[in-house]
């Protein structure tokens, strides 16, 4: 109950904000654009069949991925510094492709243990085609549906429960690497667990399912789909929660707090001390009747 009220309340407060006009304009443009797209004649026969998609995916795969992952996605055996440069994609499933390509991690600039997030290279259509092709190599997790990771369908009470349970699961399984705030953390040998702040729920779900790069899996036999959904619900809820206590200083814990104590606190107070003890302006005149 409370959660919904709060969200609604904040929305209504923002309705008359200075950006509201701009938002309305953008929404209008978006709407007319999508209406056009929906009713334009070209749309009529673009729903590709599965085989077509796989064929298109294979084409894309051969052009962009096969150099590292092999012509048939079988991988290449080269091992560098303890990691396989181009692992096999047989059985990784569509979810892995959607995550890796959809977040811009793949294709990589150069092979490395850490696959950083980059601007996405392919369109969603192309990603779907690639995913269909890789899924055809061997059975693996499919791309989740929005209903899998959304708590929209739940009652108010169930949502609240889901969020607090998700928080506990998050703190048990995820914070060790991704930090209590989802701000990310360091891993051995220059690796890192990425920041989760603006990651879409779908990608979080896919990452849990497929264990990208160094991350362990949280397959459905490990965390049930509901538990994954709860974690995502928790992460969304802390994003939406106001910063009750002021600016979060990066949400990195005591190290950044210590820096602020020294720079803002001690720095500011030393400036004050310098001012207090400094000499004031002097006049050339002398006081006559002193």
């Amino acid at each position, binding site marked *: 109950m*409370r959660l919904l*009220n*709060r969200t609604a*309340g*904040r929305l209504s407060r923002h309705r008359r904000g200075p950006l509201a006009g701009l938002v309305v304009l953008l929404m209008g443009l978006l709407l007319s654009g999508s209406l056009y797209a929906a009713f334009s004649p070209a749309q009529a026969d673009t729903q590709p069949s599965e085989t077509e998609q796989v064929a298109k995916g294979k084409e894309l795969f051969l052009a962009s991925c096969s150099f590292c992952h092999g012509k048939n996605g079988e991988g290449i055996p080269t091992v560098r510094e*303890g*990691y*396989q440069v181009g692992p096999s994609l047989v059985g990784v499933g569509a979810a892995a492709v959607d995550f890796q390509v959809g977040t811009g991690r793949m294709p990589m600039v150069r092979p490395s*243990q850490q696959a950083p997030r980059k601007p996405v290279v392919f369109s969603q259509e192309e990603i779907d085609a690639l995913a269909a092709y890789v899924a055809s190599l061997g059975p693996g997790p499919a791309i989740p549906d929005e209903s899998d990771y959304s708590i929209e369908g739940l009652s108010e009470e169930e949502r609240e429960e889901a969020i607090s*349970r998700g928080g*506990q*699961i998050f703190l*048990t*399984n995820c914070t*060790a*690497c991704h930090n209590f705030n989802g701000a990310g*953390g360091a*891993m*051995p040998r220059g*690796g890192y*667990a990425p920041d989760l702040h603006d990651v879409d729920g779908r990608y979080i779900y896919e990452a849990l399912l497929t*264990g990208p*790069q*160094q*991350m*362990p*899996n*949280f*397959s*459905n*036999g*490990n*965390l049930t789909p509901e*538990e994954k959904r709860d974690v995502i619900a928790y992460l969304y809820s802390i994003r939406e929660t*106001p*910063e*009750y*206590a*002021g*600016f979060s200083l990066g949400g990195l814990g005591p190290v950044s707090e210590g820096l602020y104590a020294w720079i803002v606190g001690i720095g500011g107070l030393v400036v004050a001390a310098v*001012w*207090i003890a400094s000499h*004031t*302006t*002097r*006049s050339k*005149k*002398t*006081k006559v009747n*002193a």
Partner: protein
Amino acid sequence: MTNQTPPPDNADDGTPAEYAGSTAATTSSAAIDPHVSTHRAEPIPDPGLPEHTWRPTDVDPRAEKRAERQVAAMFGAAMLCSVLFVVAYFTFDIGDNWDTVAGLGASTVTLGLTLGMALLLIGIGIIHWARKLMSDHELVEMRHPAASPPEDREATVAALNAGLDESGIGRRPLIRNTMIGAVGFLGLPAVVALRDLAPGDVLDIDRLAHTIWEPGMRLVRDVVGTPILASEMEMGDLINAAPEALFPSEENGYPELHGVEEQVEKAKGAIIIVRMNPDDITPAEGREKWTVDGIICYSKICTHVGCPISLYERTTHHVLCPCHQSTFDLADSAKVVFGPAARPLPQLPLAVDEEGYLVAQSDFTEPIGASYWEREKHEQQLQD
């Protein structure tokens, strides 16, 4: 400051303060106390305090008035801030439905800003007043040595000796020594009285050797408490798990645990389970049968100082401790590959029960967590 011991009365004491510009004390004076530093004003003689110069506010009535108004304005603004604090206190909601400003909690931010500005304005106002309007003539006060004058010291020593003498403490060593002994022995009650900080039955350090794990106990997922099917674990899975006894139910029949007991067992029984390619595992001697199809289980408690660890890299099979970065290789009996830890993570021998769920073959075969003085003894006991 009022209860300060008055400085010893000597010639210097009570010398009226002198204004800048009058004769400054020179260091060439012959009668310098030997305890006082004899910094000599050479090669350049001390020119004495410089002439006093005046501030605009001293000589210009307009400047003076302006400064006065500035200070008063700051005090006035401070009052306003205090009132605004009260307004903010009653205006902004907290609790279930926080008001926000720019995504921040409105109550905290406005209360902090109004209180802070009120205080800052008072502070800046007072200091501005002091800098611009209060007399800024520097005063000179003479120092005196920290030591008391010799005659005072002699008198004190004499009094001390007289007192000691009259007590006879030097002449009666028997009394002196027994008294010292008696007071010293008071240390015993003082120390012993603290013994029950950990009362009798809980001060049993041998408890550190054991955890709640026992043969056949199921491994369950932490937080939700559901048992784990070995067949459901996929390659690369990491499960943060706990002993089933911490999630008692009618079904599993474990007794309800309360408060302290639950926390203690939780702190010792936490585990991580990973599944890797069985070929990657280098089993230690005698541990060949401790894994189930590449599923391997270790204590989650770091052997360094006891942080829970689960920062697992699935391709290298390394697990990192977020507290001090000890790194363990789970494929190789959790040996330390980096960081301050000295010992591998204890491994929990695994099996599956008839329903296919993961169970423990036994308790850990060594004490879990941080090292302690008696650790080696406990390990010996466990292995015998």
